[in-house]
C-alpha cells in the first residue's frame, strides 16, 4: 500500500482547534460517543461491564450505536490480528502509564508515524529494526484502522530467539518482526518476535492532557522450571524498562507539538509513512461533521 515511487496523497488535517480548544474537546467527545460504532473498553477481567460489551479473544469492545456493523466487520482485517495477539493475554507481566501534556490525537499521530525511529529513538527502536526499512516495512490500512510491521534487525531477532529458548516463551506467530496494530481511536497493540505483546490505550483527560496506559504480556510455553522462571523475572524488568524508555522519548515531542501546533499557519503534510495518520483525521472529520 505504500508506493514510494510516487508522491503520496495529500490529506486535509483537522484544524488546530480540535487540539487546543476546550469546547472542541467536548464536541469531539460527544461525537465519538454518539457516532462511533465500537470502542475499545478494556481486557477481559477488567472492571468493565454492560450488555453492550463484546469480547474478541479477550479484547473488549463496547457497541455504541444500535445500527453498528458486526464487530468483526468494523475491525476488518485487524480482527484476525487481534485474535492472534489475544492468545498472549493469559500472561500479563507488567503495566505502566504516563501522562502527556498533549491532546490524545497527538499521541495517536506519534504512534502512527512510522518513521521517527532514527530521530526520536536512535538508541532504542531504531537499531532494533532492520536498517533497510524501505524493503521491509509493510503497512496495511482499512478505514481508520491499520497495521505496520517492521523486520527486526538480524541481531535483535537472534536475541529474541535466545530469549524464547531460555525464558520458555510461547509465540503466537513464527515471525521476526515488530508490529503495531492500531484500532481507531485509542487502542494499539505492539508485538515483538511473535511473542511479547504490549497493549496500549490512549486515554483523553483534557484537551491538552492524555494518559497513555500500557500492559505487557509475555506468554510462556508452560514448561517453566525454577531457572527459566528466574530468567523471565529479570527479562520482564528489562523489557518493562525498555518500553518505558521508548515512551519517555516520545513524550517531549508530543508535548512540543501540543505547545506549537496552534501557532502554525500552514496545512502540514503527511508522507507515505504517515498515511495512517491521515486515515485517523479522515474518520474524525467524518464523525465530527455528523449532526
Amino acid at each position: 500500500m505504500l508506493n514510494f515511487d510516487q508522491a503520496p496523497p495529500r490529506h486535509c488535517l483537522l484544524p488546530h482547534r480540535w487540539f487546543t480548544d476546550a469546547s472542541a474537546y467536548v464536541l469531539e467527545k460527544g461525537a465519538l460517543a454518539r457516532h462511533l460504532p465500537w470502542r475499545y473498553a478494556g481486557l477481559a477481567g477488567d472492571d468493565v461491564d454492560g450488555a453492550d460489551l463484546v469480547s474478541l479473544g479477550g479484547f473488549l469492545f463496547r457497541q455504541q450505536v444500535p445500527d453498528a456493523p458486526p464487530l468483526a466487520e468494523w475491525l476488518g482485517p485487524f480482527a484476525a490480528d487481534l485474535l492472534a495477539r489475544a492468545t498472549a493475554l493469559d500472561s500479563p507481566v507488567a503495566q505502566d502509564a504516563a501522562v502527556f501534556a498533549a491532546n490524545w490525537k497527538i499521541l495517536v499521530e506519534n504512534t502512527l508515524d512510522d518513521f521517527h525511529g532514527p530521530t526520536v529513538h536512535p538508541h532504542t527502536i531504531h537499531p532494533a529494526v532492520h536498517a533497510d526499512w524501505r524493503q521491509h516495512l509493510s503497512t496495511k490500512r482499512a478505514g481508520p484502522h491499520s497495521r505496520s510491521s517492521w523486520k527486526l534487525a538480524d541481531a535483535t531477532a537472534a536475541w529474541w530467539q535466545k530469549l524464547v529458548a531460555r525464558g520458555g516463551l510461547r509465540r503466537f506467530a513464527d515471525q521476526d518482526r515488530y508490529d503495531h496494530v492500531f484500532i481507531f481511536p485509542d487502542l494499539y497493540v505492539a508485538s515483538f518476535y511473535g511473542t511479547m505483546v504490549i497493549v496500549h490505550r490512549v486515554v483523553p483527560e483534557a484537551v491538552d492532557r492524555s494518559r497513555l496506559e500500557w500492559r505487557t504480556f509475555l506468554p510462556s510455553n508452560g514448561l517453566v522450571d525454577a531457572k527459566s522462571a528466574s530468567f523471565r523475572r529479570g527479562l520482564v524488568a528489562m523489557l518493562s524498562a525498555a518500553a518505558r524508555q521508548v515512551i519517555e522519548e516520545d513524550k517531549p515531542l508530543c508535548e512540543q507539538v501540543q505547545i506549537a501546533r496552534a501557532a502554525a499557519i500552514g496545512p502540514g503534510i503527511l508522507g507515505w509513512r504517515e498515511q495512517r495518520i491521515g486515515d485517523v483525521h479522515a474518520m474524525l472529520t467524518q464523525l465530527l461533521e455528523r449532526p
Partner: protein
Amino acid sequence: MTGWALLGQAGDLAEHGQWITGWVGTVPVVVRNFSGSLRGFRNVCSHRFALMLTEPAGRGPLRCPYHAWVYDAEGIPKTIPFNDSDFHLDDTARQALALPAVAVCLTGGLIFVNLQADADPALPAQWLTNGDGTLPDGSVIKADGTIQHRSTKARTGPC
C-alpha cells in the same frame, strides 16, 4: 500580544549559526544568524507542527527534532530526510511549506521581533530613545543596556 517585542541581546547572535528563541504571546519565534543576516520565523515546523528549537539560545541549524527537517535563510525546508521516497516535494512544494517570517530589528544591541513580517522597524529604536527602560511590550532594560526582564521569555496568553 501584537507589535514589537524584545527577544534578546544581539551579542547572542553575533556569529553565523547562533539563534535565540522566545514567545510573542502564544507564538513561538526564533531568530537565527544566517551568514551575517538575521532572519526570524515562527518556531513551528511546517511538517507536523513540532516546536523546533526549545532552548532560549544556541548554535546550530534550524532543525526540527521530530523528523530532522532543516530550514534555510528563507525559511524553506532545504533538508527533508527521505524526501525522494516519502514526500516527493520539489522546489515549488518546498517553497509552499516555508516557515512564516517574522520581522527582526536590531537596535541598541537588542533584538526585537514582530509577527507582522512587514512591520515598521523604526519603532523599537524610538522606544529606546524615548523611554525610561520600561518598554511598551512590558520588557525592562537596565541603565547599562542589559535586559532585566523580557516579555518573550515564556508563553503567555490563553492555553
